[in-house]
């Protein structure tokens, strides 16, 4: 019997490493299958090493590693797709609130007049905040769409779907830009995300006002998404003005903060709404 063969040091090390890797699987899967996977891996590793030698063991480990990476991703993705509607909406509401907070902080730490200075440490924090934001908004918008899909019109449906897609595009662009260190990709990607996320919120607000499906703050998405867009457009138009700065400039510049507050409130409203649904059911 294979299990009865003596262990060698290298097999024991393999088992220890594989046990560590198993910790990456989702908890429910791990509890159910990890001991069996470890046993099967151990049996096969002993067999390969004792019958075919080190080269085969290395090949087996290569195969195992790809098998591990693939299956761990699959199990986590399945966990997400199997998530109940309520769980997903709850997750999305937190994501949207966190997205609002992240945007708020990101806005404060960026720019020449940053309150946090320009050290490499804060620069890294800022980069992280910008990259994580689109994912948070994409999750939040997807949850909003899931919760109000049946009540919203085609405009709201399309706006949120487009918001999710462009947020993901913005995320990939920013990620690629940071990894490849190409600033020319980062800023356009950020702007794609930013503009589309605000536009999506404004259109959702318009649709929600028309149909009245948001339980509270019905007019706020339109204000929080629409005003910053108008402000940004105004800024672009007035960029080369001959008369210099005006007293309303600081207000225009801080308009994205309104969008951040709007996102936070939408997330909070969604969370309250889903809590109510769960209570009543």
């Amino acid at each position, binding site marked *: 019997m294979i299990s009865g063969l003596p262990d060698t040091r290298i097999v024991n090390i393999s088992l220890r490493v594989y046990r560590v890797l198993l910790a990456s699987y989702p908890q429910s*899967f791990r509890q159910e299958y990890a001991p*069996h*996977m470890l*046993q*099967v*891996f151990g049996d096969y590793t002993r067999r390969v090493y004792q019958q075919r030698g080190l080269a085969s063991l290395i090949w087996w480990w290569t*195969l195992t590693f790809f*098998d591990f990476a693939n299956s761990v991703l699959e199990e986590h993705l399945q966990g997400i797709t199997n998530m109940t509607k309520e769980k997903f909406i709850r997750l999305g509401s937190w994501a949207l609130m966190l997205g609002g907070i992240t945007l708020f902080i990101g806005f404060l730490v960026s720019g020449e007049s940053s309150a946090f200075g320009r050290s490499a440490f804060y620069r890294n924090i800022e980069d992280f905040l910008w990259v994580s934001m689109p994912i948070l908004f994409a999750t939040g918008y997807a949850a909003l769409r899931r919760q109000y899909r049946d009540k919203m019109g085609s405009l709201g449906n399309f706006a949120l779907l487009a918001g999710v897609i462009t947020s993901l595009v913005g995320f990939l662009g920013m990620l690629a830009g940071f990894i490849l260190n190409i600033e020319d990709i980062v800023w356009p990607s950020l702007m794609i995300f930013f503009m589309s996320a605000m536009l999506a919120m404004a259109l959702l607000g318009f649709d929600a006002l028309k149909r009245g499906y948001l339980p509270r703050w019905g007019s706020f998405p339109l204000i929080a998404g629409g005003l910053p867009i108008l402000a940004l457009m105004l800024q672009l138009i007035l960029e080369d003005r001959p008369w210099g700065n005006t007293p309303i400039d600081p207000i225009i510049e801080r308009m994205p903060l309104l969008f951040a507050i709007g996102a936070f409130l939408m997330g909070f409203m969604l969370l309250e709404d889903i809590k109510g649904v769960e209570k009543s059911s």
Partner: protein
Amino acid sequence: MAENTPSPQDHLPLTPAVFNIMLALADGEKHGYGIMLDVENNTSGTVQMGPGTLYGSIKRMLKAALIEESDERPDSDLDDQRRRYYRLTGSGQRVLRLEAERLASQVATARAKNLLADLVSGSSQ
């Protein structure tokens, strides 16, 4: 209570991993390691299934009721009692048969288009 249970056709086509596992279980119940060895033997060593793919597939097959855990254990002297044994369910057997027929029909099409001419002449030598 009438539930919407999927028909055997709904499971097709099977993924290569699921098909290989079901094929390994076609001649009787086996534990995970036994399935791995059988898959390797059945494919002349071309398919080496890792534990992640094996147990991920087993999880989904159990959920789809294509296989079930077997309560019967061989003699404790012969095997580790911690092992779990799996076997095909009636539905699993039907799905496996349908998938094998589907693949056979594809092979027949390939043969009709002379794609297997080299293989046939090679195997007859």
